[in-house]
């Protein structure tokens, strides 16, 4: 039903600005999903914005310098981002934990600095005049509606691929790594390879979104990828619910795009509201929106075989705990 609503949405919404907000929300969902994918493998990234930027710049350079059309630039920039992620990831995934998080954050910072400093990437002014996608048969990419369907297609495609990964053996391996790396390793799982795989897949997806972004806005500037972007991306996942790898970011991104817009909060105060919001979620609703809902749902259902321990387990497998 939600899917039908998403497909039919342009028929109901005629306002171009609202369409724009929906497109931005979908971009947010896609980026949030890349964060969730790494989280599912026990890695916390603060650098999703970096690969988003690499995809956008890669696509921009391919289409402005080499004159490639969007349909060639999109897969190629996805590939480029994947290669960069493989190169960086093969070094940094070796030591997960805090070091990984810090390096991804630094990498995001450095990518923005590098694109801003180098003339090749257009400097701080960015590159303007990126071509819109070539017409695909009868479909012209001139209106917001056509871009809406394009991002919707990308979103559904990515969600399907991610869902397939999560339900396959790979997804189960990722979750086992998250639960306990030593346990997973003792079962003969190559931690490094699976973590690297999650890193490359998630980063390529971010690169693909970046490519879409460049052709949608028809310009790229370093500022668009810097600042609070990487932090907002995680906020989407945390707000929606960390344990829901696809739906969590979806709900979080939609809320974070539309609520500030309709509350008409002054731009100055917005970060404070976001910060307070974030603290409240973490302090009182640590499962995010979906996690909290699920807890209420479970509490209502009569469960026959449920052991509710009042004691904290000192040691033992995490699966025994409620939640």
């Amino acid at each position, binding site marked *: 039903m939600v899917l039908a609503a998403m497909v039919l949405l342009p028929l109901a919404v005629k306002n171009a600005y609202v369409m724009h907000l929906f497109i931005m929300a979908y971009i947010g969902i896609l980026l949030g999903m890349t964060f969730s994918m790494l*989280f599912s493998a*026990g*890695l*916390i990234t603060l650098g999703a914005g970096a690969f988003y930027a690499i995809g956008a710049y890669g696509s921009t350079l391919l289409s402005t310098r080499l004159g490639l059309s969007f349909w060639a630039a999109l897969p190629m920039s996805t590939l480029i981002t994947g290669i960069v992620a493989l190169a*960086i990831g093969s*070094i*940094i995934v*070796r*030591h*997960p*934990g*805090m*070091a990984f*998080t*810090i*390096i991804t*954050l*630094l*990498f995001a*910072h*450095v990518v923005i*600095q*590098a694109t801003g*400093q*180098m003339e090749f990437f257009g400097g701080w002014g960015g590159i303007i005049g990126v071509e819109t996608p070539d017409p695909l048969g009868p479909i012209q990419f001139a209106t917001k509606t056509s871009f809406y369907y394009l991002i919707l297609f990308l979103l559904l495609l990515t969600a399907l691929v991610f869902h397939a990964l999560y339900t396959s053996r790979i997804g189960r391996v990722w979750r086992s790594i*998250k*639960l*306990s*790396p030593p346990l997973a390793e003792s079962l003969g799982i190559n931690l490094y390879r699976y973590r690297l795989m999650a890193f490359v897949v998630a980063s390529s997806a971010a690169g693909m979104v970046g490519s879409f972004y460049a052709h949608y806005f028809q310009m790229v500037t370093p500022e668009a990828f810097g600042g*609070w972007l990487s*932090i907002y991306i*995680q*906020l989407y996942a*945390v707000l929606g619910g*960390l344990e829901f790898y696809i739906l969590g970011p979806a709900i979080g991104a939609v809320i974070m795009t539309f609520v500030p817009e309709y509350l008409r909060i002054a731009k*100055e*105060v917005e*970060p*404070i509201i*976001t*910060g*307070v*919001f*974030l*603290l409240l979620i*973490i*302090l009182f609703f*640590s499962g995010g929106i979906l996690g909290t809902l699920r807890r209420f749902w479970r509490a209502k259902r009569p469960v026959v075989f449920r052991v509710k321990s009042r004691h*904290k*387990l*000192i*040691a*033992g*497998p*995490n699966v025994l*705990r409620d939640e």
Partner: protein
Amino acid sequence: MTTALFVQLVVNGLVKGCTFILIVLGMDIILRGTKILNFAHGQFYMLGAYTLFMLCRLWHVNFLLSLALSGVALILVGALSYLSVFGIVQRRFTATTPFTYRFLMSAMASVGLMLILQQGTLIAFGTTERGMPSIFPQIIALGDVRLSLEKLLIILLSMFICFGLYLLMYKTKLGLAMRTVSFDPEIASLQGVNSFGMFIICFALGSALAGVAGGIIAPVFAVTPTMGTHIIFTAFLVLLVGGIGSYKGAVLGGVLVGLALSFGFQFLGGIAELFVFVFVIIILIFKPGGILGEVLD
């Protein structure tokens, strides 16, 4: 390159390095004691600079006294933020909470705190740069090498603080308690150490170090609301180079990165940061835990 330029670059690098050392030592104390990666640390540094600016410039308090006062102010800010945010987050954790979840929750809480502090200061003080007149404007001339007394004093003062910190951590009972808690809070509790109290002290001490770093640098650089965000990236670099959770590593990393940035900006311009980052990545290939740290999971 003349000798004068060389010496000046070294001194500038050391001044930068000293700020990094103080900030990263604060981070390390928080990280080892409470296992929180505090993203709001840069904002604590900024608050320290603003406190000093207000005390010293607007109310004409003595420089050293206002430096101490900005440290005290940040102790309060740190303790308050630990009690109101991180303490509540950490109290929910049990022994079986996965590391990823622990780390993410406290890191995200600090990101929330960072956004609030950053934007709050921006609204309260505006975006204008606040300059302070030099406290010690004298210039020391040794042959053709000219150095400002202030920068030398900053280096001396930071070394003094580091030494005091060493005495506190390794020669007093409080330091022993803090180190025990950072080893394992539950074992510390068994030995009669108040773990929760130690968490607060670690967090407050780390914040105070950031505040003092901000205060010490305020007379040299302009005080702006964004100074915290700028320094935090470099501070993370220092943390990685030296090794996460290693005090000696913080000192070594601070000096290395400070010098590298000082020389890099002189000869390469703004791209220097990129080179330092690549350099750090190369170090991490060979020494995954940083130069003096061990790999923490």
